[in-house]
Structure formats: structure tokens, C-alpha cells
């Protein structure tokens, strides 16, 4: 089984204070730490699990800056066989569509039965890249995948729907799966594997390696922190009084 997994290096913003930079189109990154996008680390683990079960090889691809090679190298240490970086610097600015188009251009010439991505990137939150790659390649896809088994050239997939519902699907391969966090337990690379990975080659591709024009469909105009609006009003009184006041407010605002 030939498996391709797309991984992205993203800033770790969960515990950090995020500020918009002077351009207004990016955040201040110099004080942030970077790591593999959370869902992508599950996608990578899933790729390695599939390889361990069905044989074949895993190719990890990252469209990112030179530092993304650290992320790819960890992927090699965890069990990926090949790693490939597409130079982000040749393509910025990027939107979800353009990112997918570039990845598509590379993946279409690779051997693949299964393509894995994370279901969302924690930095831009587009959730577009996986499905667009699949559409461009003309293969089926499933998003928010929480289980993935392969049976005779077909994938058995469980997807997460809203309201706690799950959906079970059978999908013909080749196909792309955008996996949800929690689908597995990402491993740690052993020290021995790290030493071996340190010596492996990471292939880099740039603007010259992509045929045809790659264009964004959307333009990022502005990033901003939502203004704080001080309009909260706390209603007091008995439950009946509160309910009455609430209904009145809703009526006044013309919401009913």
C-alpha cells in the first residue's frame, strides 16, 4: 500500500498570546513555537499504522518554510519512508485552494492508494486542502475520519457528524481521508529511529517543479482580534421575572 500524508507546521497558539503584525495579514510569529498541526500528527500516525499492517511505504509531504524540515524529519523518525518539502517561500501568499493545487501537482505524479491529511489546520482553520486535492485528483474523499480500515481495495471509514452521530462508509481506493484527532494514539519516535532519521535525505521541490499556473482564489484582506463589546446585561429576580424580561428584550429587538 502506497500512502501519502500531508503535514503542516503551524504556530502553537493554544497557550500563547496572538498578535496581528503591522501588515495586518499575518500574526507576529517570532515568539511562538511551531509544531506539527495537531490533526496532521494523527494523519501521520494513521499512515504509519496502515503501512505496518499492509506493507508498502509512507511519503510525508509538507508545503512549508525550511523549518518544516524539522517536522518532516520527525515524521521520518516515526516511520515515514520518504519526506518531501515544497518550498513555501516560492508560492506565498497561499490560500486553501492554492495550497491544495500545489500539493495536487506533486501528488499526481506519485504512487498512492491512500492519501491522508488532517481534517483542519489550527492556524487558518480552512479545512479545504484535503477535499480539494481529492477533487483535483478525481478520487473520493472523506473528512472528519475517526476510524479507517482497509478491506480488499476498499476503505471502511467512520466519520464524525454533528450532534454526536457517526457515519459508516465504504469507499473505493484510491481515496483521500482527512482524519480527526483521536483516531489513534500518535507515537513518540524512539532515540534509535531519531538517529537514523537524522541522516536521511529530505527532498525539496520549488516553483520550477510545478507545471501550470497556481493561483489563489481568495485574498486575505485583514486579520483582527474581535473588538470587545460591552453589552452584557445580567437579569435578576425570580425565574418567572427573568423569563418575562428576557421575552420582552427579544421582542424589542425584533427577534420574535
Amino acid at each position, binding site marked *: 500500500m502506497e500512502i501519502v500524508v500531508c503535514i503542516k507546521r503551524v504556530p502553537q497558539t493554544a497557550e500563547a498570546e496572538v498578535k496581528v503584525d503591522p501588515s495586518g495579514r499575518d500574526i507576529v510569529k517570532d515568539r511562538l513555537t511551531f509544531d506539527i498541526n495537531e490533526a496532521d500528527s494523527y494523519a501521520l500516525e494513521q499512515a504509519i499504522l496502515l503501512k505496518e499492517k499492509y506493507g508498502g511505504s509512507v511519503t510525508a509531504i509538507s508545503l512549508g518554510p525550511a523549518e518544516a524540515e*524539522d517536522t518532516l524529519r520527525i515524521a521520518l523518525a516515526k516511520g515515514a519512508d520518504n519526506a518531501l518539502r515544497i518550498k513555501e517561500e516560492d508560492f506565498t501568499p497561499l490560500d486553501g485552494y492554492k495550497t491544495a493545487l500545489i500539493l495536487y501537482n506533486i501528488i499526481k505524479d506519485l504512487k498512492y492508494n491512500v492519501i491522508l491529511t488532517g481534517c483542519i489546520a489550527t492556524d487558518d482553520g480552512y479545512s479545504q486542502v484535503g477535499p480539494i486535492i481529492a477533487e483535483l485528483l478525481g478520487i473520493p474523499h472523506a473528512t472528519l475520519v475517526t476510524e479507517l480500515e482497509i478491506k480488499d481495495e476498499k476503505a471502511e471509514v467512520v466519520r464524525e457528524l454533528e450532534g454526536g452521530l457517526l457515519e459508516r462508509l465504504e469507499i473505493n481506493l484510491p481515496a483521500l481521508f482527512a482524519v480527526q484527532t483521536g483516531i489513534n494514539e500518535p507515537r513518540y*519516535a524512539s*532515540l*534509535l529511529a*531519531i*538517529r537514523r532519521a537524522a541522516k536521511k535525505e529530505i527532498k525539496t521541490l520549488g516553483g520550477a517543479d510545478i507545471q501550470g499556473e497556481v493561483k489563489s482564489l481568495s485574498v486575505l484582506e485583514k486579520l483582527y482580534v474581535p473588538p470587545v463589546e460591552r453589552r452584557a446585561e445580567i437579569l435578576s429576580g425570580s425565574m418567572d421575572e427573568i423569563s418575562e424580561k428576557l421575552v420582552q428584550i427579544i421582542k424589542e429587538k425584533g427577534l420574535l
Partner: protein
Amino acid sequence: MNFDLTSDQKMLQDQVRKFARTELAPVAPEIDKSGEFPWENLKKMAKLGLLGIIIPEEYGGSGFDFISLAIAVEEISRVCATTGVIVAVNNSLCAYPILQFGTEEQKKKYLPPLCSGEKIGAMGITEPNAGSDVAGMESTARLEGDYYILNGTKRFITNGGEAGIYVVFAYTNKEMKHKGISAFIVERDTPGFTLGKHEDLMGIRATANCELIFEDCKIPKENLLGEEGQGFKICMNTLDVSRIDIGAQAVGIAQGALDEAIKYSKERKAFGQPICNFEMIQSMLAEMATQIHAARLMVYYAGYCKDKGMKRFSKEAAMAKYYASSITVDVARKALQIHGGYGYTKDYTIERLYRDAKILELYEGTSEIQKLVIARELTR
């Protein structure tokens, strides 16, 4: 001059940091309370190759250098000082002297189980009547046929209660003074070897600190480590090396304390603002960060000396251990101070770190002994 970590050191740091935060941090308060030796942690660490970091691959280890060992021990100790010292002792106090001074047979027999976690390692130097004064030890070993007969008591032995392989020192010739000390590899189930008192420690509470009692303990002749009379040299050489990772343990605890202090100072409000806005708090934070940075560089430098194959780096190792231990105690104190009264309760991590930090000024040579080593090197 180059301050960059290598690619594999960076990866090691990344993976050990994540592992420590996810797997070790949650159990750290539990084992501090129960004092139970963290076998589960060790099994997981064995799988990653953390029990034989500096042991070559051919003996089951991971084949990394001493700077890498320091990085790993720092990251582990940052969340769990107990686990940090268990790993440090296994690597540098037990596996290292066997690697450095052992015969090929000894290395083949003892290093793989130490790396796989099948057996944990310990080292016995200290005795009830001899701590700082190593040559004051009273244990003896006399050769009778194919066996050395070992008698004596070792006290305060980290991993002692749970280990399977021990490096133990005893006099084979009392007249020769320190040149009459020899080192032995002792297995746990050797007849005549029993465990004595288990210590109820103030910090690093789950390290199975225990007394080892040898009564006519029969050690096969081939378990002599190095030659007869080489024990003191083996001991000092091993301590030079282990001071690198014990220094790293100190840096880890200090970093953990700073992590807690920063977090708390941003959350806690007084006089209508977060306490991190107060200059006196900022001053403490700045001092702590600077102290840690300096200590870390000293530890890395000692590791660099060893990795480069420098013959003599006792001074550099002693300086790193001395400085890192004194700052970790100071940093833990400041971090607790920043927590105010809450820091004095068991509800906050800093209370544990404060207790853990103190051991650094005591074991593997007290701070006084480190200064003695440094001064001796200066006036040689």
C-alpha cells in the same frame, strides 16, 4: 564555536519533551505521594531508548552523546525529578562505568538488560560512616577461590530497592588506602545480599532509596569491574560524568519551577492587576531565567568536554553540578515565593519542586565537595 543543537539532538529534545509532558507529568504528583517506584514510566522510557541513551547500539543502547543525555534528563526532570534521577543513575552511574571499564563479557551481559529496562541499575558508594569521604568506606571484599566475599552496608542508594544490577565499591586491600578500593558488579539475587532500610525522603520520593546489606555475599570473580585497586579511579571518573546529567536534573527542576512561576504570576491578581506586572516579581523572574540559562550552558559545556574526549574535565563537571544545584534551590525558592501562601500547599506543583530541588546540593558530592574539587584543580 557553535551553540546549535544537532539535528538529532533537536529531535530528541522535541520527542522527550512531548513524552514527558504527556506521559510523565500526570503521574509525578501521584508517585511523590505514594513513593511507589514508577515502573510504568520506566517501561515506556525503555521503549523509546531512554534507559540507555549513551550506550552504543551494539549493547542495546541508543548511541547518543552526553549533551543528549543532559537534554533528555532536563526534559524529564522538568516535569518529574524522581524519574529524571532514575534515568540519570541508570545511564551514568551504572551502565556508564560498565561500558567504560567492563570486559566485553560484562558489557554483553549487563548492558542490554539495563537498556531494555528488564533490570534497573544502581551504584553503591555511600555508607553509614562514609559519605563525602569515599575512602573512609568500611566495606571489604576478599578473594576466596572463584569468589569475592563482600561484607558491608551501603546507604542512601538511589534505585536501591528495585534495581537488578549494582555497581558496588569495597576495599580489597585496606593498607593501600584509596588505591585498595575495587569495584564490583553485583546482581540482585546474589546470596548474602539483602535490602535494609527504605528511606522516607523529603523529595524525589519514588526513587526506591534503600540500604544494601552484604553479609558474606559471594560475588563471582569475573564480576570485578576493572582491576583490583581501580575502584577509586572508576568511582571518580564515573562521578565526573554523572555530574553532567545531575546538573541537567537541576536545570530541569529549575526550569519546571520557572514554568510554574510564570504561569501563576500571569493568572494571580493583586491590587487589581496580574502580579507579573509588579517589578519585584519581574525581577525574580528575570533572575531565575538568567540563572537557568547560565546553568544550562555550563551543563552543556561539561557534556561537550566529555563528548570531545577531553581527558580531564573534573573541574568543568564539578562547576556545572555545583552551580546548577545552587541555582535550582534558589529558583525553586523564588518560584514558591511568587506563589505566595498557595505555594506552601500541596495543591500547587511548586511545593514538590521545592522539596525535590534540595537534593541536588547533597548527592553525587555535596556542594562543599564540588568546591573542594574545583579548588583542588585550581591549585594543582
